[in-house]
């Protein structure tokens, strides 16, 4: 658990109580940069908005986007309804107003952790069907016509990540989320794994393309029938034409 709070007395008590429960707690008075937070690989983040300053919304937005599995709780002083709603819409899991009892905060964090657990998600996530592809998170595998694609763990994580994002994901974002570290300049890991993923997708579902390359940016999951003569139509979406995109 990472706690960002300038109140040292509060973080001391909180830290002791978390550690009594077997959690490793890191308390800091100043904001930890999102890349450094990725490196710490925490399960939960408790943050006092006053420690973040006026840019707290953009900070929370970036943290929630980079670490979707992180349980984020804002524990801060008086706030407006608009502030709380806005933060919760950004992806913050809970908002606790100070003054509060450490046990109350720990109980809220416990509840958010339970909600963010992968097995919790598996119950919520029904198999995602895109074109001929069925992505089954609970089996960590994808299928075409009931036949497994035999994806490796990394290949599946990349597929799931791309399939859940309704936008182009930068290579750096994919690497950070799947590998859990910042991507080194020049690292071709994402390209190599996407290439293998495409090979398996093409072998299992030759009539479709699934992943578009956006040169110099990254990848986008956009299932389309493999018909060279006609403009490609994304499954379940309106016609999509990527002038800068290439598909396999």
């Amino acid at each position, binding site marked *: 658990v990472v706690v960002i709070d300038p109140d040292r007395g509060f973080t001391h008590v909180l830290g002791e109580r978390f550690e009594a429960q077997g959690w490793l707690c890191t308390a800091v008075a100043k904001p930890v940069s999102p890349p*450094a937070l990725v490196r710490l690989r925490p399960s939960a983040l408790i943050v006092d908005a006053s420690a973040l300053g006026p840019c707290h919304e953009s900070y929370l937005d970036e943290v929630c986007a980079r670490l979707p599995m992180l349980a984020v709780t804002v524990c801060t002083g008086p706030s407006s309804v608009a502030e709380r709603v806005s933060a919760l819409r950004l992806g913050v899991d809970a908002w606790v107003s100070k003054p509060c009892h450490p046990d109350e905060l720990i109980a809220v964090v416990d509840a958010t952790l339970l909600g963010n657990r992968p097995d919790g998600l598996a119950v919520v996530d029904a198999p995602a069907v895109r074109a001929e592809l069925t992505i089954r998170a609970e089996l960590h595998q994808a299928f075409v016509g009931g036949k497994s694609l035999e994806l490796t763990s990394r290949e599946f994580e990349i597929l799931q990540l791309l399939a859940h994002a309704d936008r182009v994901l930068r290579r750096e974002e994919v690497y950070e989320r799947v590998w*859990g570290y*910042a991507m*080194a300049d*020049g*690292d*071709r*890991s994402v390209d*190599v*794994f996407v290439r293998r993923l495409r090979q398996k997708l093409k072998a299992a579902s030759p009539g479709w393309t699934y992943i578009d390359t956006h040169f110099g940016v990254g990848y986008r999951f956009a299932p389309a029938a493999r018909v060279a003569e006609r403009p490609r139509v994304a499954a379940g979406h309106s016609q999509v034409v990527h002038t800068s995109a290439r598909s396999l």
Partner: protein
Amino acid sequence: MGLSQLLAPPGREYFALFEEAGANVLRAAELLDQMLASYPDQGELAAEILDCEHNGDRITHHLIQHLNNTFVTPIDREDIHRLAGALDNIVDYIEEVADYLGLYRVEAPMAQAQQMAKILRESCAEIAAALPLLRGFQDLRRHTIEINRLENEGDRLTREAIAALFNDGIDPMVVIRWKDLYERLEDAIDSTEDVANIMEGIVIKNR
């Protein structure tokens, strides 16, 4: 071996062996370039690079054996020994890079390593083109100048590549693997400059 063979100028044999070594160096560099460009899809090229390393050892062994068996050499014995060793070093470093990609379980290449392999291949092509010029101690400066330029480019690339590994938040395992591989690639490129310097020295002494 007869007396006439011992005393006869045995230059052709040495030059032929150097040219063979040059072709072998170029072959190894081309294979590494191809391996890194397509990595990890053509991992089997590591075995072919290992064959080049064995071939290089065989050529060096022949050169040394020849040196031990003859009194008269077309160039300084020391230069023959140094040139054979420097050519062998290039292939050794290339083979180490290919082998360590597997040993370190590298999943994917780095763009900088691909660029360095390209520079190494170009430099080895210059060596292979320059070695036949040793026969008549002809001017090979255009090749050595190009090798020096490529070596400078390789130095710059290596430094930038290593510096990039120390950006915030990078997996320490990635740093360990690639710092080592970049340094071996740099050693290989540096060895091409050693070869260029030795060849230049031989021409200057014998013209």
